[in-house]
């Protein structure tokens, strides 16, 4: 019998290793033969550690298992799918899972992330095989036709970026994966690296063949040690199998891939700062133009894509552009792995076609707040994203629809807050975070963020509140239009949305109520 237990960092954080060890020793004591398979996570984090057992009817789940539950699970004959109070039923029938469109994350949580045969058995490397058959120009055309847009947040069409690099003339080109996933409330990159790393390797290899690049780097933040280990192991396995290195899959293409580790700088998630960091410099933002597609890493043409963008490429090449573009709405085609986090009952990764509303995601899928109190605000798109009040929960999940409401979907994170949140404090935090992480190159971000903290403090203290609110709005305008990159340019989103939707929290009278 096969028992599946996640090795995803979030599962480990709530005791998955201890549960796995307890199951192994209990099985030995009882003389039960079990095969333990360590997988990535399905992304239903409120159920972690989620133990799954293979049965003829599919995988049976046991959620939120603790070490103390283990003897009871054996008593209940869980290894044959027996009923226990921790039973979740068939895992793929859990509504949170059944309602998803798992394209990019199809294998995540299902297979041992380092089992190349399991990866291939579920369609792995069929995308690269087809890309090699199509040739470079056709591969890029396919990516363009899929409508895929950059999943890091900017939403730039991936195919157009690739075309620019493909047609650039240079002796050396690079593929760079941005896995510097620093936004609070996001974990899609981490989950994929820990749960299905070959998908990323395959996607980057397809990109390399399509644009004529021979070297690639995955820039992973240092806060993700488990992802770094899994990614390095997967690269070594792919090299041994002839899927990286010289003559990839027996083709004419060579592709060397390496993991590089960041050093705790949020701004390195900005693509030009990331390139500077890879080159071994301070992670300072570059002015554009020139764009990285023409003058990127070491001045060479470079594809810089977010991890989720690369990981979506194998599906597009395997099933065809139309299969992907069939999902979604308007100019937002395909699916987005939405990450529902914070004060929410059912937090996790929910991959779904664009078009679902924010309210459905928070209330129906997420089940409302974890504390059971009313939801008051949702920050969409990380620390640089706007706070949405429930009054805007009808907003469809779509790049343009969010922009029309002065927000952004960013890398797909949603952080839910209940009614105990103090929005003036959150606005102040946005400015303080920008000050902490500013690379220092441009003045609006470097100085503006510090002045922002000071002015918000004055407002909350009741010093000339009206003038200072006008001042903060003016400062936000300057930061928005005067900053070099999204750090200074988007910090105004959380600040202005907090001011606009929750003005009562900025009134001096709010102080006693907010002091919890």
């Amino acid at each position, binding site marked *: 019998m096969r028992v599946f237990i996640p090795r995803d960092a979030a599962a480990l*954080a709530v005791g998955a290793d201890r549960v796995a060890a307890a199951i192994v020793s209990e099985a030995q004591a009882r003389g039960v033969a079990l095969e333990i398979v360590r997988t990535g996570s399905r992304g239903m984090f409120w159920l972690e550690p989620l133990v799954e057992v293979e049965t003829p009817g599919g995988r049976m789940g046991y959620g939120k298992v603790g070490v103390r539950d283990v003897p009871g699970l054996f008593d209940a004959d869980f290894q044959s799918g027996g009923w226990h109070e921790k039973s979740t039923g068939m895992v793929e029938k859990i509504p949170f899972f059944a309602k998803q469109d798992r394209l990019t994350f199809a294998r995540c949580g299902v297979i041992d992330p380092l089992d190349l045969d399991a990866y291939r058995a579920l369609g792995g490397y069929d995308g690269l095989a087809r890309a090699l058959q199509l040739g470079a120009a056709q591969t890029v055309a396919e990516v363009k036709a899929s409508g895929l847009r950059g999943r890091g947040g900017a939403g730039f069409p991936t195919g157009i970026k690739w075309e620019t690099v493909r047609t650039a003339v240079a002796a050396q080109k690079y593929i760079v994966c941005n896995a510097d996933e620093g936004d609070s409330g996001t974990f899609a990159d981490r989950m994929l690296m820990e749960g299905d790393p070959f998908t990323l390797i395959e996607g980057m290899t397809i990109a390399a063949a399509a644009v004529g690049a021979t070297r690639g780097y995955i820039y992973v933040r240092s806060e993700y040690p488990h992802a770094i280990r899994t990614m390095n192991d997967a690269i070594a396995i792919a090299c041994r199998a002839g899927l990286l290195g010289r003559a990839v899959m027996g083709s004419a293409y060579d592709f060397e891939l390496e993991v590089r580790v960041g*050093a*705790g700088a949020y701004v390195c998630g900005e693509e030009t700062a990331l390139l500077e960091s890879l080159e071994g410099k301070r992670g300072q933002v570059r002015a554009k133009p020139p764009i990285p597609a023409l003058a990127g890493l070491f001045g060479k043409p470079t594809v810089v894509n977010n991890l989720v963008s690369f990981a979506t490429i194998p599906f597009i090449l395997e099933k065809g552009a139309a299969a992907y573009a069939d999902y979604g709405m308007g100019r937002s085609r395909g699916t987005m792995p939405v990450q529902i*986090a*914070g004060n929410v009952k059912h937090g996790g990764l929910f991959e779904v076609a664009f078009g679902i509303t924010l309210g459905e995601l928070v209330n129906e899928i997420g089940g409302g707040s974890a504390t059971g109190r009313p939801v008051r605000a949702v920050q969409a798109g990380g620390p640089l994203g706007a706070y949405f009040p429930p009054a805007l929960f009808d907003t469809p999940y779509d790049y343009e629809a969010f922009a029309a409401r002065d927000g952004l979907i960013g890398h797909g994170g949603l952080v839910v807050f209940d009614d105990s949140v103090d929005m003036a404090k*959150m606005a102040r935090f946005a400015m303080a975070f920008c000050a902490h992480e500013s690379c220092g190159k441009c003045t609006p971000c470097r100085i503006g963020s510090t002045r922002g903290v000071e002015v918000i403090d004055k407002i909350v203290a009741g010093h000339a509140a009206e003038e200072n609110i006008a001042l903060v709005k003016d400062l936000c305008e300057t930061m928005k239009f005067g900053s070099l990159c999204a750090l200074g340019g988007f910090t105004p989103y959380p600040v202005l949305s907090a001011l606009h939707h929750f003005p009562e929290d900025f009134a001096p009278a709010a102080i006693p109520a907010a002091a919890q």
Partner: protein
Amino acid sequence: MPHIWDSLAAEDIITAREALEGPMLPILHAMQAHFGCIPEEAIRLIATRLNLTRAEVHGVVSFYHDFRRAPAGRHVLKLCRAEACQSMGSEANAAHLLHRLGLGWGETTPDGRLTVEAVYCLGLCACAPNAMLDGEVHGRLDAGALESLAMEVL
């Protein structure tokens, strides 16, 4: 524990990585793993070997939050202070723990056993609040669980 400078080990760290494209960060990470921090001697050596000025190397070291100029305590507890953890009460839990230990952010207990630092997101945001103790991750940490975690190493 104070670092003991070992120039042969430092030379080896550089030699193993100098052929990389952009070797600076891999070298600095390896130096810190070996010495517990980036000693002044390392900055001089890296500058010489990579043909850079000391100011340039210093500029890189001081830019990144990860690199330390002095070693941390024997154990390092990183508490997440980002929004998702805040939504689950991380700030109050952290304040409680720091008060109990008599520490501020980034400080080390007088016996050198524990350093408590801020981190901005560990990517475990659906199991908030989170912390990392010596590289091991911990989720769903209420004030009590956080305190017992810290007590494990004190």
